[in-house]
């Protein structure tokens, strides 16, 4: 009986000695992994400044074709702050509606085709009407419209 008990104790000690070091190294590894996860979790402070941005003088916006305008948006991403030009289309022939130039399919910048009087996305041939309505192609939605207002004779959009 005694001999068997000794065997059990020795087996326990053996198991302990193999679990202890692996446990300790596991804790060290887990701590570093946790720090890695936390420090590499996606940056949540990526943000553009929000508010009303001037697109142009209302007096200068005229005609029966979309006009491309650029607005400057300050983008903050982590340690860096950049002023980026964002392209929009103003539709003087449709109550000065302002459309985003980003294709709703996969985000390519759309272009205005003069001959066909349509917006074209050069990436996958999505076509949109001169009002921004989806016509053909893989895009499932119309072009995104900005909220607009007129202040002191200037057309503004909310970004």
């Amino acid at each position, binding site marked *: 009986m005694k001999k068997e008990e000794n065997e059990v104790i020795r087996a326990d000690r*053996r198991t302990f*000695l193999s679990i202890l070091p*692996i446990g*300790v190294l596991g804790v*060290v590894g887990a701590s*570093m992994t946790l720090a890695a996860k936390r*420090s*590499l979790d996606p940056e949540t402070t990526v943000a553009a400044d929000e508010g009303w941005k001037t697109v142009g003088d209302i007096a200068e916006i005229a005609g029966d074709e979309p006009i491309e305008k650029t607005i400057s948006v300050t983008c903050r991403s982590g340690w860096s*702050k950049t*002023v980026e030009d964002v392209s929009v289309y103003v539709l003087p022939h449709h109550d000065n509606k302002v459309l985003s130039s980003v294709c709703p399919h996969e985000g390519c910048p759309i272009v205005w085709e003069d001959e066909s009087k349509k917006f074209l996305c050069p990436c996958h041939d999505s076509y949109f009407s001169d009002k921004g309505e989806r016509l053909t192609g893989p895009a499932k939605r119309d072009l995104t419209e900005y909220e607009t207002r007129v202040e002191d004779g200037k057309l503004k959009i909310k970004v």
Partner: protein
Amino acid sequence: MAAELEINRWGITNWISRETEIKPIILRLLDEPGTGVSAWARTTSGLIALLLFVQFATGILLAFHYVPATANAYTTVAFIELAVRDGAWIRSMHYHSSVLLPIALAAHILQMIFRLSFTKNSAAWIFGVVLLGLVLGAAATGYALPWDARAINGVNIAISLAGNTPIAGGFLKTWMMNGNAISTLTLSRFYGLHVWIVPMLILTAAAMRVFIFGKRKDAGDEPRYAAWARSQFTRNALVIGIAFLAISLLSVVYPAPFGPQAAESSTYLPRPGPQFLWLFEMQKYTDGTLAAVLAMGFPSVVIGGLIAAAFLLRRRVDLVRIAAIGLFTVAFGTVGVLTATAIYQDHSDAKISEQLAKQELDESKFRASVFEPQTQMPPRPSKREENDKGPQSSDAVLASSSSPMPVPSAYEVNCAKCHGERGEGTAKFPELVDVTTRDEDQLTPDMILAIINDPKAVGRSSKMPSYKNKLDDDQKQELVEWIKSLSPKDPNGETPHVQTASIQDQKQ
């Protein structure tokens, strides 16, 4: 065979030991059996393995956020310290482990001297000594990366020591600077050495230790060996666990030093990490070639001498041991005395200790502050797109995509310190990039000129001095034209290239 299976009962570990060479390597690493004090002394290997692991792990994490260019390095390190989750702790772990590595290696070398490792296991011995040289190299190159006041002073000193080296001095200096002045290219050199060359050398040395030079001892007694290996593994793991806990707490309480941005402070006293205080103290008494020879010769002689012990007088091991102990005592004694003197001198000088206390206070204020992002140059159309727009003068084609006009020398000398190398601004001073277009300014050329002449007269920053008498009219005009050219869209509809041409016309 039964004994081997005993260690690895679990399926996956069984598979690993059956299909890979891991197990003989682990057994090889564990040296010959031992008990008591000697076995615990040998846990210095575990400690070093932990510290190297921490260095690689935290180093890689830091690399995810750091940018090795002088314009961004300081900001990105401040970002790591203030904004990245656990960033300050990660950087602190990296710093404290770099300080502890040479100490752990000294202890490792000392215990190996007593065990006569240089004859019995010369690969382990040489590896330990070479590693000491490599971790000092890693610390020396890593010192430059934050590009704070400490780093820039450190780089100045390193370049000067390199330049004063006999024979190779000129080459070393230009190579380290990567040009004829300290610039962003210098930082690239230190970065490449710190994150690629030195870690690769450390990994290569470790691989050679394990795969090439390693020899298995006492292979006959497998069961005893296996049992011993298991308990030595346990000892190492315990030491690793305790050390990791200690370094983690140390890193929470004492953050890694981070000095001010170089442009801001002239009173700052740069002090190196504890592992380089001996070098710092040495520089107080030496100059020129002597300083360079001592700074590089001293560690070289110590490391070379200790390596040589593995090849000397194999039959008179005791004699070599005495020589090794002698060299060790002299070398580390010298380091100890110099380090203690450096600390004592800083403490006993009232003026210095007051300034150092002030620096500590400034640093804790910085740590309590909110991170302010750095304003970057807006993206510019690439050269190709510009060419697409039609034929342009050859000057326009030659001009780089980000700088339509060359930076005037008057700007580099007088303005760049505060407004950034290319008008991008610094932490405390405004950017010039879009002063002609941005809503709050919309400066005309005349207004820019007025600000250069007397900023206070036009209600501008009280910190900017007047340049009325410091610059001549041509220089001022050149500055105005250049600042105008920075704006992404000129209100007059002129392209920057036209302005380049007009400047040249004026000169002719």
